[in-house]
Structures are given as C-alpha cells and as structure tokens.
C-alpha cells in the first residue's frame, strides 16, 4: 500500500503524458497543460512545508539561544513582514510588498550574482595552470576566447577574434553535442525506469 499505490500513480501519469504527445484528440488534448498546472499547485503546497521548516528551525534556535540566534530573529522578521504584507495587501507594483522586493530582495540578489565577477577572476588565476595536457587545452581555449572578446586581442594578432569564434563554433560545439546526446539517452532511460517502477529513489530510501 505504502509503495504500490505511488508506483501505480507514477506509471499512469507517465503513460498518459506519452499518449497525449501523440494523440491530439480529446480527452488527451490539453492534458499536458493541466498536469503542469497541478504540478505548480503541489509545488505551492510544498512551499508551505518549506516555510514551516524554516519557522521550526529558527524559532528553535531562538528559544535555545544557540550562537547567532539574533540573526534568526532578523530572518523571521523579514519572513513575517513579507508574508503579512504580501498576503494582506497584494504583491502588485505600488504595494509595500513590492517596495521591499525592489529595495531588499533585488539588490541583494543582484549583488550575490555580481560576486561571480570576482570568483571568475580568482578561479581562473588559481585553476588555469598548464599542469597536464587536459588543463593546458582548457587554458588555451579559455585564453583565446577571452582575448577574442576584447579589442586587446585584435591588437595582439588580427586573427584572434576569428580564432575565438572558430573555437566556439567547432571544437566547443562538438564537445557540447557529445555531452548533450549522452544526457538525452540517460534522461530517456531514467524516465523509462521511473515509469516501470525500477527507479524509485524519490519514494525515499531507494528501496
């Protein structure tokens, strides 16, 4: 019962999706959109689960006064203010919720994203060393492509921008394609195992 029913649900859902792809007729028409909608609804409920977990962990930290519990207060305050303003007065432009989103969430997200500029620099300084043949190829491809992107490259040698484009469209493309074909085959075979109930990790425990 605990394992059998989920496996049956998986099987039916999977088969329905396969059929609807080939048969545009009712009742299969629009099935994909409907199922996708349902997925989003389940995801929304899972969000409640997530928020509950966040509340549990951080209220626990506050009540136990574990180190850094003050930050948990900051976290819970941010969460509560967003939830109250968003659920109470909506999330449209012009609401308080939107104001917080625009002035707190966006700048922090963009700044985290911008950290990449620094990490791209430190990673390339540290890791792009010609230690082995593989690393050397990585290094050369990276340098040529990087040079091709700035005027400096053209000054060094007029063919560099061309060389960069060539690497992008041939050796790079070939490598990516090999990976993509492998991924496609792996994805299809995993999907088949899921539908047949061979692959069942998502039910927990893997048994």
């Amino acid at each position, binding site marked *: 019962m605990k394992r059998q029913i989920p496996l049956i649900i998986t099987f039916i859902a999977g088969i329905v999706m*396969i059929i609807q*792809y*080939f*048969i*545009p*007729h*009712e009742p*299969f*028409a*629009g099935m994909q959109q409907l199922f996708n909608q349902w*997925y989003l609804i*389940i*995801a929304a409920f*899972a*969000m409640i*689960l*997530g*928020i509950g*977990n*966040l509340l549990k*962990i951080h209220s*626990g930290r506050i009540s136990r006064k574990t180190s850094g519990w003050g930050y948990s207060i900051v976290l819970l305050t941010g969460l509560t203010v967003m939830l109250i303003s968003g659920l109470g007065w909506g999330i449209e432009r012009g609401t308080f919720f939107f104001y917080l989103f625009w002035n707190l*969430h966006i700048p*922090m*997200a963009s700044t*985290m*994203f911008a*950290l*990449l500029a620094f*990490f*791209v620099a*430190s*990673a390339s300084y*540290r*890791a*792009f060393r010609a230690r082995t043949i593989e690393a050397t190829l*990585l290094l050369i491809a990276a340098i040529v492509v990087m040079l091709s992107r700035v005027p400096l490259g053209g000054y060094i040698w007029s063919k560099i921008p061309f060389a960069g484009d060539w690497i992008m469209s041939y050796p790079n493309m070939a490598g*990516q394609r090999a*990976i*993509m*074909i*492998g*991924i496609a*085959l*792996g*994805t*299809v*075979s*995993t*999907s*088949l*195992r*899921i539908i047949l109930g*061979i*692959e069942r*990790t*998502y039910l*927990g*425990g*893997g048994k």
Partner: protein
Amino acid sequence: MTTIVLLTLLYLQISPPKDVRVFDTPNDAGGSITITWESSPDAEGYRILRMALPDSVYTPVDWVDAATKRYVDKVEDGVKYRYIIRTERGSAYADSEPTDEVWSHGNVFHRGRTNVLIGVAVYTTLLLSFIYFAKRGKKLFVRKIAGLDAVDEAIGRATEMGKPVLYIPGLSTISDVATLASLNILGRIARKAAVHGTRVIVPNRNPIVMPVCQEIVREACLDVGRPDVYREDDIFYITFSQFGYTAAVDGIMLREKPAANFFLGMFWAESLILAETGASTGAIQIAGTDAIHQLPFFITACDYTLIGEELYAASAYLSREPLSLGSLKGQDWTKLIIGGLIVAGVILVSFGSDWFLGLFSS
C-alpha cells in the same frame, strides 16, 4: 445618382483578398478552422464572415487589421461552414469569393511526430531487452568513474577531521533527472557517513525535494543501525530564491567548515559562487551536473566533476544493481548505434546524398 456612381467607383477601386484558403486546423483536438489569404493593397482591415450550412446568411465573426493574413476560427466539430473575407476601407468594401465547404474534426494521431514514435520505440525496446538480460543474471561491466571513487576518501577525511559533510542536491525540482540521480548518491553517502557517525548537512532550495532528502538520510541511518546519528535539523529548507540560497550556503561553508562538499544535481549561475567559496575553505569538492553551461566552472574549481551522463551512471555504478546496470548497457549500445548513424550519415552527405537527413527531422 452621383452618390451611386461615386460609391461604385470606390467599390471598384478596392480589391478583395486573393487566394483565400480554408482548412481544418491540422493535428489538433478539433473545434477549429484556419483561413488564410493574400492581402489586398487597399485594406484598412478585413472582416471575417461565416455561414454555417444549411443557413444561407453570412454573419460577421471578427475584424482584423490590414497586416493580418491568417485567422483561426473556433467552430463546432462536424458542422459545414463557408467563409468570406471582406476587404474594408472606410465605408467601402470588397468581398472575396465564398470559400469551399469546410468542417473541423479532432485528429487521432499527430502525423508530425511519427519519427519520434519510432525513435522512442526502438530505444525503449533496446533498454527493456538489456534490463531483461540483466535480470537473468548476465554479468555486466562498468568502467571506472573517477569522481565516484573519491567519495569514500572524502567522507573518510571528514570523519578523521571530525567535521561535517555538505551535500547540495542541486537547485532543481524532484522531477529533474539530475536531482533523482543526486538523491541516489545521497543515499549512499548518508549510509557511509552514518557508519562513521559523521554529520551530513543538506540545505535545500526546493521544498519538494526537502522531505525526500530527509527520508533518504533517515532510512540510511536506520539501515546501518545508527538511528542516533540522524538529525532532522541538518536537512532543511532555506529559500526558493536562487541567490538567497547561495548566500546561505556560502555562510554555512564558512561557519561549519565542512571537510567535503558535494554539489550533485542541477545548477545554474550560482555554481561558481558555491565552488569557489568551498575551495577557499580547503574542502574536498566533488561536483556533478548535467547543466552543460555550469560544467566548466565545476571543472575549474572542484577536485572531481561528474560530466553529464556520468552523473546518471553514478547510481548504477555505486549500487551495482542489475536493473540499473542493464539500462546503462542499453544506453551504451544506443550510443554505438548513434555513432554508427553519424559515420554513415556523414559519408552519405559527403557524397551528396540528402535523404538520410530527412529521417531525423519532424
């Protein structure tokens, strides 16, 4: 009299749309007819007129602007219709010839997808037969996958140092194949860690994946007889925000100083932020993803990286479970077939034969 003449003149000046065609919209569930026409140079817009037989009166359905050359009408299945497209300019107009009778119906098979059907059928048959052989106990070999052999070493080091292991199951949802592959590996790692009593920290971005991770780690601890090691608070939700999650994981890496970081699953731009922060703490890092764009960053900043399909193969490799091994064999053989097709195709195309290309396009 003059008005009539003028109107007639105006009428004559306007040309109706040409080449009006109607047909049942193909490969759909029915209830729709498509009308196309060649635009008239004089139009300010077109009016769509429709007559359902056996009526004898055309009624206006809609008005569209002068640039429009195609209209999809919602109709009843099985009823016969005729259409007229009318060019309009001010109060003047010109009608096209009435179209032939047309009716709509739903299609039972999507014709454009026959080659996909064949492809899927061939591939699944191949996979199923290999799974069948595997079930019958045929011995199957899998080559070494470097990143996976390092897993034990990484956990061992964490145990020695008395530090936790950080496991990121990717940022995507449960249905992502990369996430499923990652959960398989999580089960193995949690079991090994539990034997040694090492903590496994699993922060989650996706709230659907979180409860599954909890269950997997809990069962792993139970399995090896160490339910005492399981700490539910170590497998938790952070936030659905990509960079909010990244900020938090960066914090965890600096504060908990895990001895080993696993980044396995689906990643986006945050990959390098995570991997570089992890590298700065000196942790052993093992990554694996099918996100092609993120692979370069893991390759440069981590000790071991599972590339694309290697991540999927991991569960078969670690578990040596015959059914998974069988399907891995099926994948391999299909790769051979695809390789063969590429070689044959390239030779044919090089000699100027194109029919081969048609087999793959829809």
